[in-house]
């Protein structure tokens, strides 16, 4: 039997998917070559998620997909049909004080500990931190550093980022 090697769709022919983004259900027509990152930034005006390298090497595009942190630049949007996506714009609604306008504890801790400078890696660091805390593997500063190493901060705010994460892990919403 001959294999049919022709692609089922061409890269630029949109196909329908449904995503729940920051709690909002959205039905979208998305071309298969469009990454989740470009979908968020270019189509949905959710520019909080950053493009730093487009190669999965910097972590600036980290978002939560069904609660798991992923590099949105390495994820084709059509692969995530039906998924729940949380970006930095939706982090506050995951916080303990859900429903209010308050920030997520990790966002407050980042401000308090000056865990950023230029702010460009920050959305990825925040989403990654929330994802990492959910994973439950990191308990010490060394383990936090290891587990956060996919998120580069060229301004070098690393020690403050670890301080902020440690603060939230120890005190949570009570901080």
């Amino acid at each position, binding site marked *: 039997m001959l294999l049919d090697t022709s692609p089922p769709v061409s*890269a630029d022919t949109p196909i329908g998917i449904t995503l729940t983004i920051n709690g909002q259900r959205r039905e979208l027509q998305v071309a298969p070559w*469009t990454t989740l990152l470009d979908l968020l930034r270019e189509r949905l005006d*959710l520019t909080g998620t950053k493009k730093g390298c487009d*190669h999965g090497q910097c972590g600036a595009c980290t978002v939560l997909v069904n609660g798991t942190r992923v590099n949105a630049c390495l994820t084709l949007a059509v692969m995530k049909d039906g998924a729940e996506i949380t970006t930095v714009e939706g982090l506050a609604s995951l916080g303990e004080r859900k429903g209010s306008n308050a920030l997520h504890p990790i966002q407050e801790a980042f401000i308090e500990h000056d865990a950023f400078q*230029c702010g460009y890696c920050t959305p990825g660091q925040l989403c990654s931190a929330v994802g990492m805390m959910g994973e439950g593997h990191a308990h010490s500063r060394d383990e936090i550093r290891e587990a956060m190493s996919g998120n580069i901060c060229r*301004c070098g705010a690393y020690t403050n980022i670890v301080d902020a994460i440690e603060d939230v892990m120890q005190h949570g919403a009570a901080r």
Partner: protein
Amino acid sequence: MATQISPASGTDRHVGSPRSRVDGPAKVTGLAKYAAEFTAEGLVHGYIVTSTIARGTVTAIDTAAARAVPGVVKVLTHDNRPDMSEDPKSYQDMVGPPGVPYRPLLDANVLFSGQPVAVVLAEDFETARYAASLVKVTYKAETPKTDIDALLGEAYEPPKKRDGIKPPPEPWGDADGAYAKAPIQLRQQYRMANEHHNPMEPHATTVVVEEGGTFTVYDKIQGVANTQQYLTGAFGLKPEQVRVLNPYLGGGFGGGLRPQFQAFLAMLAARDLNRSVRIVLTREQMWSFTYRAEAVQTVSLGADRDGTLQALRHDAVHGTSHYEDYQENIVNWSGTLYACDNVKLTYKLAKIDTATPGDMRAPGAVSGLFALESAMDELAQDLGKDPIELRLINYTDREPIEDKPFGSKALKACFTQGAERFGWAKRTPQPRSMREGRELVGWGVASGIWEALMMPSKVRAVLTGDGKLELGNSTGDIGTGTYTILTQIGADSLGLSMEDVTTKLGDTSLAEAPVAGGSWTAASSGTAAMKACREIAAQVFVLARQMDDSPLANADFERVVFTGGRIALADDPSRSVAITDAMKAGGFDRIEVVGEAGPDSDFAKEFECFTHQAVFVEVKVDEELGQVRVTRVVSAIAAGKILNPKTARSQIIGATVMGIGSALHEESMLDHRLGRFMNRNLGEYHVPAHADIHDLDVIFVDEEDKANPLGVKGVGEIGIVGTAAAIANAVHHATGKRVRDMPITVEKLL
């Protein structure tokens, strides 16, 4: 008038207190917008095709396949581009070095690898990217020269000096004669690898076509006035036709000082298509312009047996491009930092086939101090002296090149306080004498020095009838905290809460200010803000005094304080007037003042202004793997008044991290056969990650300086300067191996 800056109660002063960034909420919620995140109706996406050769000519470009892709609007090349100025002067930007600036798509000549040869413009990003892959470029390649070692014989003194960069001073004494006679001699060659800035935000420009031949441009730049000058010059436009904004910048480090080719190309395309255009560089394309170029340096130290320096030579050959003579101060620091009677400093350039290098955090000082402070450590070792003691023996309170006293120099206090915090007294001097488990432990120290500069700057201040203050100018907050410190200065000047003060930056419609660089922004924009606010305070005070039955009727401006939104008598705070009441009574709903500041030329005649650092480093080295970890850093900084210890500390730790990168990780590797940087991605060009960074400690040493009324000297750069040398010195202490070429990678220790 100084009383105006200090409200009655010391507890509500913001200047000098740790304050969280005022732009923090915008940055943690994703609302802060960067240059590629502004959009417009019918936006066209541009994708740049870059040259694969470093030197030669483009003989043909076949764009037919790209143009055939549905959604492609146009493909611009040097063959079909609209008319553009050929006059190099049109392309001059505010900080460009002498030479002929690169003019994108001017002609078929290729000057460097990664040079734009075409721009694909399409209705969406993916289409532009795909079509760009279909552009076929044919070249006539010439052999590139990128190996600086092969060009040392052709090195030359730059005929035209770069504005703001002092050439080496005339030699004094007889350095070579004194060296020959010195009982202790040390002559070594030092080098650092080529480094690229790699801010997290790739360079990007969005040009929005507005009504009536005007444009709004969002450009990744450390000062929007520079992009405005560049684009108006290149395209023959008037400043009022091009408004440039960049409220947030995703990292600069000097890489965003000069407008880059994507800004030119986006404007070229927008004018050609009469449509708004955005061009974003890929990470790989971030290796196709400015970088910290390798310098080959020789340091020669001659000393008496007691450690007194008798001879000091520092010679550097530095890479630049074929079309511009980029220059740095690499060697002058050696004349400034130590007392020595016989000094000779030389600086030459060698032309290599890359894009023009550029300023990268503490340009010149990072390379120069790595060499000098490594050499001083080697000399201490040869003399059997403690490295701090050797530095104190040769300490100078007068700046030797200009032969003037320092405005302030608390470097001794940096050594004392840093050594105590670090526990330096417990160091055993012999290399390989400290060990922890399977790891060798090394402790190293180095000094750092950087200029304390001011540049002419303006700040516009507007106080409105509701008691709110707005400050603004065109400089950029590149993550340094400028929004926050200006807000603090404004709040203190008028006795307002920080919530009542808004600072706007990065907009050419605001007061003009220079690019954010050189660690000069706090001193320059800070002083301008303070002056503007003082003038507003004086005007509001007059209104308050003129009020009917004013409690301040006979008060003297020198005897009032601004606090809690009120103007009060310093001696009797119960007699006060609310700022809002004074404005209302005077019939003013806004008072607008532009404050100006610049270098104090009287002070500069008498004093030399520098910041200083003593940096202490602990490394642990796994001898079997050659792996180095920087486990502890104490960086003691003397930088005058610290406006915000929280954000200033972040500047120092951030610079320390970049210094760790220089010392251990960062290296843009050139393939000299191709004339191309090979590791153009963040997987192969390693910048420090979370796991590389351990305990970083910062000390701000008290230092009073009078170069400006705030007493500020700047903190953006000083934290990186001595860090790489301190790490190399610590590695030597741990292992007994002296590595004189950065980065110290595994193979150099095995």
